[in-house]
């Protein structure tokens, strides 16, 4: 019973991890950069949403603004920070994303301070309840259900976009061969900017969806980013759909650890999984071979 409840509570959480991982993987696969500022970019967008909401009291508008801001931020990061070092060194790109991480945190502290703000859920209302057998009662909060639907919906939408649209195919082409994509006439800089934009807007979305639970603070997405990495590692960064699956597995696992061991060790155990996974099966749970992109 308990385990079923963990799964039910784990899935919405995991869907968000998956969305996080999806963005990170998309950027990594296409541009070759592991974005360590991913979480904080989402955090900053959540603050934008918060501000818009405080001004307009319109939650949908707030979320929309956050997502648009995420796209813009992604474009800017690509254009001004990543492009100059694109072909130089991985170390350099890594350190730049760490720098962005720090800057966004600092900026958020200046603008909004360090005190947490609460943020509204998408829907409020009594949770769905199911009775099972004698005294089994499963609880599914309405908001969680909506989060799951949105996450999966967005994922499917993106998957379709990448699969059938011309630009989507171009993104995949760019991720496989930069020279090849240039010579067929793909504007690779534009594609890279777009990918950064999409990736970060996903983090923005995760930021506003998780905000009711974490509250809005400059460090709200720190753990989310780690979970995103973990989900990515589980799913294998080279497979986009693996990311979502990895996220959901992780979400369930997390709840199980929390219930059966202790919430205190939740993060530690999850993080050990990352390390072991990376060490012994860096290609992820689902991929057949490791492409070893550094």
């Amino acid at each position, binding site marked *: 019973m308990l385990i079923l409840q963990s799964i039910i509570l784990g899935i919405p959480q995991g869907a968000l991890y998956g969305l996080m991982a999806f963005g990170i993987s998309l950027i990594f696969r296409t541009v070759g950069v592991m974005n360590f500022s991913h979480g904080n970019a989402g955090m900053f967008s959540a603050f934008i949403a918060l501000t818009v909401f405080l001004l307009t009291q319109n939650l949908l508008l707030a979320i929309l603004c956050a997502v648009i801001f995420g796209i813009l931020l992604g474009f800017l990061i690509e254009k001004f920070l990543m492009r100059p070092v694109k072909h130089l060194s991985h170390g350099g790109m890594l350190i730049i994303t760490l720098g962005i991480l720090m800057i966004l945190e600092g900026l958020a502290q200046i603008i909004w301070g360090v005190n947490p703000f609460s943020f509204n859920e998408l829907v409020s209302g009594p949770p769905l309840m199911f009775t099972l057998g004698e005294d089994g009662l499963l609880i599914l909060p309405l908001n969680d259900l909506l989060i799951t639907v949105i996450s999966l919906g967005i994922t499917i939408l993106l998957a379709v976009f990448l699969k059938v649209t*011309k630009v989507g*195919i*171009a993104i*995949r*082409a760019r991720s*496989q*061969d930069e*020279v*090849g*994509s*240039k*010579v*067929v*006439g*793909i*504007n690779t800089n534009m594609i890279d900017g777009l990918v950064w934009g999409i990736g970060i807007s996903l983090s923005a979305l995760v930021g506003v969806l998780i905000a009711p639970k974490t509250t809005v603070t400059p460090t709200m997405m720190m753990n989310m980013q780690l979970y995103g990495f973990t989900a990515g590692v589980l799913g294998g960064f080279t497979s986009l759909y693996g990311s979502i699956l990895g996220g959901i597995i992780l979400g369930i696992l997390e709840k199980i650890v929390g219930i059966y061991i202790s919430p205190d060790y939740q993060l530690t155990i999850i993080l050990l999984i990352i390390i072991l996974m990376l060490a012994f099966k860096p290609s992820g749970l689902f991929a057949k071979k490791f492409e070893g992109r550094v």
Partner: protein
Amino acid sequence: MLRVENLSVNYGHVKAVKEISFEIKSGEIVSILGANGAGKTSALFGVSAVVKSKGKVFYKDKDISGFTTYQRVEKGIILCPENRRVFSGLSVEENLKMGSYLRGNYQKNIETAYRMFPILKERKKQAAGSLSGGEQQMLAVARALMSDPELLMLDEPSLGLAPVIVDQIFKALVELKRSGMSILLVEQNALKSLKISDRAYILETGRIVHSDDAKTLLNDEKVKKSYLGI
């Protein structure tokens, strides 16, 4: 059609191409020959702006030196790069679709492509990475043709292909020329490419050391011995 003046390509401190000038007239096939590492690929990369270069490039008497790769593609300058560079995770069909990303009528051209390389039609749903080397080369050539090139540049298109297929490709090139396309060809097989070329440039350590009509070059003993290995 295309005029290149003092083109230089550097990789850090390696000077791959040193101030070369050459031109391709409308409807010509021009070859660039040279040993390994002479800078042929780099020169083509320079012309299509895949790498940064110095010097001027004129296309139909318009200075396009500042153009990016895709802007040059838009104008009809298409490179079929060395080592195929197909998108291995995309299907054959998707690869061809990308060929007409900016130019060319996909529906019309794909028919032509499949007619030219029937094997590609058989494999159209298959990932390009699972094709054999030769098939991938065919795909690369077909992909380049998808965009209706005005000036087609091919970098070693016959690499790894069986002689029959090579003949087929060369025959196709002659036909494309007849239909009005200008072609810049880089080939290891110098003899074969000279035979279909109008003119040729010989590149040595980044410099053009010789240029002439293909026929003259074919009959020049010294050139034959030192550059063509015949």
